[in-house]
């Protein structure tokens, strides 16, 4: 045997263990995504289509502004609902099931650190939420685009004696201001970030609960309280001041346990035509990163020594 052959045999034999491997995390994430897709979750797109196409025909007697506004309201509402449900139910369904079915044994007895398993699951679910939001946005923007053009044509037709160019231009401007705009993408991004935070909450709950139903209920409670969190903090600390270390500490704990989800509801503003500052978006992204990091750490602490 030549020297280099000996070496290659040896390398085959002793695979050095990597403390953290992105390819393992990615394998778990893709597996999670595939699993959810094969559970036929994308059938929800049918419901979503019915909802937003239906929204066009329900309110025919409204002004065009109201009509477009309702379409956007319904779409954003449905997107928020679906994205949040996917992230909570998806997490609650898959992790406790892995534990219950002992599928987890086969994964963790490969050289996979427990942290990678958690992060992989989280990424897989967030990936599913992202893909479903992209699909929903496409449909939403297409319907909105179609509606705004249809409304414009209708309004122009309604002007007796034919519209002048100036009138046409005016109508186009006012109608399209309610139509497809880049701001809407920011709104969708905020919906995504909120769902990602919800998935993080469900991850923490599922690592200690090991029960699907319990995880869903607790996560939903946290989700709803999260929307009222800022109100509660404002009530107890009216002028925004914390008196002393203890109160700051309590407020900090509350903010971690119940993430401020109200902050992510920027689509109300977008629908009424407010512009969204880059600073706000960056803050939301930063906040999401912060929450996901904290939640991954907490679930790892809970999971690292868990007896399986």
């Amino acid at each position, binding site marked *: 045997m030549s020297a280099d052959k000996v070496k290659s045999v040896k390398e085959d034999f002793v695979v050095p263990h990597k403390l953290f491997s992105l390819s393992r995390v990615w394998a778990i994430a893709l597996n999670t995504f*595939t699993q959810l897709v094969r559970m036929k979750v994308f059938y929800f797109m049918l419901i979503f289509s019915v909802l937003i196409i239906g929204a066009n025909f329900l309110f025919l007697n409204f002004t065009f502004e109201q009509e477009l506004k309702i379409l956007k309201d319904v779409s954003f509402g449905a997107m928020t609902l679906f994205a949040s449900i996917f992230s909570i139910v998806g997490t609650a369904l898959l992790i406790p099931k892995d534990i219950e079915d002992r599928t987890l*044994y086969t994964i*963790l*007895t490969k*050289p996979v650190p427990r942290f990678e398993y958690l992060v992989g699951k989280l990424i897989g679910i967030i990936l599913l939420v992202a893909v479903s939001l992209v699909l929903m946005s496409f449909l939403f923007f297409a319907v909105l685009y179609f509606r705004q053009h249809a409304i414009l044509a209708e309004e122009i037709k309604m002007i007796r004696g034919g519209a002048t160019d100036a009138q046409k231009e005016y109508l186009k401007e006012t109608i399209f201001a309610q139509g497809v705009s880049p701001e809407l993408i920011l709104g969708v991004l905020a919906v995504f970030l909120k769902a990602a935070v919800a998935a993080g909450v469900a991850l923490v709950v599922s690592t200690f609960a090991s029960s699907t139903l319990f995880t869903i209920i607790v996560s939903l409670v946290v989700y709803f309280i999260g929307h009222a969190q800022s109100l509660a903090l404002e009530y107890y600390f009216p002028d925004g001041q914390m008196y002393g270390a203890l109160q700051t500490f309590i407020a900090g704990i509350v903010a971690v346990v119940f993430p401020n989800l109200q902050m992510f509801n920027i689509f109300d503003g977008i629908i009424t035509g407010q512009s969204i500052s880059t600073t706000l978006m960056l803050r939301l992204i930063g906040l999401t990163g912060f929450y996901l990091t904290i939640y991954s750490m907490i679930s790892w602490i809970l999971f690292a020594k868990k007896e*399986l």
Partner: protein
Amino acid sequence: MMAEEIIPAVQINNLTKIFPVPFRKEKVIAVNDLSLCVEAGEVYGLIGPNGSGKSTTMKVLLGLISATSGSSAVFGLSSSETASRGSVGFLPENPYFYKYLTGAETLSFYGKLCGLSRRKIKERTSELLSLVDLENAKDRRLGGYSKGMLQRIGLAQALVGDPRLVVLDEPTAGVDPAGSRKIRDLIIELKQRGISVILSSHLLEQVQEVCDRVGIIFEGKLVKEGKLEELIEIESQTEIILEHAEPKILDQINELVQASEETRVLRSGKPKTTLERLFLKETGAESEDVRKDS
């Protein structure tokens, strides 16, 4: 290479595992001061009734639960280190896999977790599918697999990372005789490839032909351990099995025995086949090995 042969595949020292019972004061001692060692290349059988602590011992060995006291190591690496899983393959008791994946996808998923390259995964997947005889089912989802097929895909899954030690928890439980025969043949094949195996069973005769050494575990304690033949040999007795014995010869043997002072005939007659062999013969599922030793 020398050093590797000296390091045992499994080294468990004075392992104790106590489970607290929720809302109660008493505790369950699942494993009680158990020590055992599996040499590299050896097939070791852990035998004991249900609830005697076999699965618990294996879970500690694989780092799924932590020991209350004592230590366990795989090829010299402590079970608490993730790296110790690098050279192990595990088939849990009654395994469940992702039923939305096909057989081939399952193996490739576990291959990725072992850090194998794409090319290597392809190679290993087709090699293992033919080893466990599931080539025809490789594109079917596991949701439609039978118990025996799941057990075999589980075995393939355990082997995907080219392990030097394979841990099998009740590999033949709940599988029909032909399937269980197939699994035992696979274990023999692993042994021939130099892979160490530790397996558990509550059925003694199912494992006796594949194990080099067995340990008998009862209520968490290792009560007896040794080479199989030595354990089951009855020191004071000798067996003679004759084919086409003429009555004359039998008479002569009897006379000789009667003439002797100490020797006595305890039993004579036709040897019995085992029910399992009968089943395999009648269903035509008999394999080479069965014919050889019957």
